[in-house]
């Protein structure tokens, strides 16, 4: 376990060093950015929409019983932009992209393509990991914003058009409760999620064992470890964010 953590730490340091040591070529970056970012838009948008819709359905009856149905928007939207949007976008990225990256790099390891890169004088971390890391880190905030947007729209449509919540009150309470800082909190966390997904997935791929079983296991581990890392980081960053928020605005209520 300690050796594993040390290995991932060393892998992460090498990746970050290579980002500054040599610039990646656009011809390498663009296809990876497309695969990780553009190809993930639809799945993240669909997931975000349904989460907003489900939240509306689940919360409506509780709030209606307390006579607070008009405040549904504030609860749905704060949950989406601070927690569910970033975590779901990251989870979808880990499932769709993380596993694929681990499987691809694992196959490259098993078929000696990674050795071939080294034999051709190219550092495999520079060529394979850095572009994937940059794509995950730079594009996950956009995917998070997409998940947030679709979740907000989904929640609003179901609340106002299906469940009959007053549209004016829904949006007014949303605006009162959800500030730009909340949106920023979610986007801020997503950078850490993206880094964790890229590093864990690439590390598992690089250390894949031989054979179909080894590559399959690397892909599974990439998702499972990434998911655990996302939840762990979400908890730690949530605590940290709350402490910073209270330190800056002691009079404000905790927003977690």
């Amino acid at each position, binding site marked *: 376990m300690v050796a594993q953590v040390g290995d991932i730490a060393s892998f992460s340091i090498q990746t970050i060093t290579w980002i500054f040591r040599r610039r990646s070529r656009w011809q390498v970056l663009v*296809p990876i950015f497309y695969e990780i970012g553009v190809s993930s838009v639809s799945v993240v948008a669909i997931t975000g929409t349904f989460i907003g819709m489900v939240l509306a359905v689940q919360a409506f009856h509780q709030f209606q019983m307390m006579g607070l149905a008009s405040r549904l928007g504030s609860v749905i939207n704060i949950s989406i932009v601070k927690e569910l949007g970033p975590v779901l976008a990251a989870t979808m990225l880990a499932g769709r992209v993380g596993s694929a990256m681990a499987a691809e790099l694992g*196959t*490259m390891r098993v*078929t*000696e*393509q990674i*050795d*071939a*890169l*080294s*034999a*051709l*004088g*190219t*550092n495999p971390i520079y*060529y394979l990991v850095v572009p994937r890391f940059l794509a995950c880190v730079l594009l996950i905030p956009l995917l998070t914003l997409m998940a947030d947007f679709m979740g907000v729209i989904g929640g609003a449509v179901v609340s106002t058009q299906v469940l009959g919540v007053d549209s004016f009150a829904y949006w007014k309470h949303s605006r009162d409760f959800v500030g730009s800082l909340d949106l920023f909190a979610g986007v801020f966390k997503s950078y850490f999620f993206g880094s964790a997904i890229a590093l864990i997935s690439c590390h598992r791929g690089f250390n894949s064992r031989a054979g179909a079983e080894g590559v399959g296991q690397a892909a599974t581990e990439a998702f499972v470890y990434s998911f655990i890392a996302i939840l762990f980081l979400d908890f730690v960053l949530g605590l940290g964010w709350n402490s910073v928020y209270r330190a800056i605005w002691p009079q404000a209520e905790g927003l977690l």
Partner: protein
Amino acid sequence: MSVSAGLTSDQLGVATRGDRDDTLIELRNVSMKFRHQSVLRDISLSIHRGQTVCIIGESGCGKTVMLKLIIGLLQPSQGSVWFDGDNLANMGGKELVALRLRFGFLFQMAALFDSLTVFDNVAFGPREHHLMEEPEIKRMVAERLTEVGLPEGIELKKPAELSGGQRKRGGLARALALNPEAMLYDEPTTGLDPIMSDVINELILQTQHAKKTTGVVVTHDMKTVTKVADRVIMLYPISRLRPDESQILFDGTPEELESCRDPRVGQFVRGEAGERLREMATVRHNRTEQDEDDE
């Protein structure tokens, strides 16, 4: 027979002093262990410029490991690897990159990059290291693909669309892209039909003659040995050796290999199971006895 096989570094220094400038690749008392498994033990050998050396031996005896040690993809547990008078262990990152660009490596399954076309695979080295302009790269790729006999139009295909023989030739074209001083071939004919194997052997021979490269060929294929080798080295698995025995069972010319008196060498050359069949019979016997005891 070469005088260098199995000698200590001091002895090797004496033995090779006369032709030191002629030595391109040198292994001095190299041992390699993966965790607790010893793969190479105290290997010393020198390979001269322009020589084509075939390394033969059973699966798992450390032939591919030796190739990876030569190009610095692996570091020896003990001993040192030298290329053109420089110890690889003393090289920094940039020096190691420069060293690797002097080598061409044909991997066992060619190891063409799946995500790139054949053209981009062959152009990879010069592009990554900014060694040529794009028009020059285009000319070079066309030349290399012609040299290895790949038809026009294949450069636009991905490796998955190629046959085994085409992949190997694509890998060879990529390895030759930068006109290397030394070529390393890892089982170049494995998995190919006899005709395609002969084509690959011819290409190796042509490469060695036309470009005057030094070649190290790891193979099980005795036809490859007969066709391309100037010198043959046979390794033997450590687990089957006595502690005091050299892991290099044979070091000499292909003609000397035919007349070698060591039964283990003869057995390999003739492809006879011999001792292995007796071992298998013993294992079967032991397992049967154990099963009966259990019952």
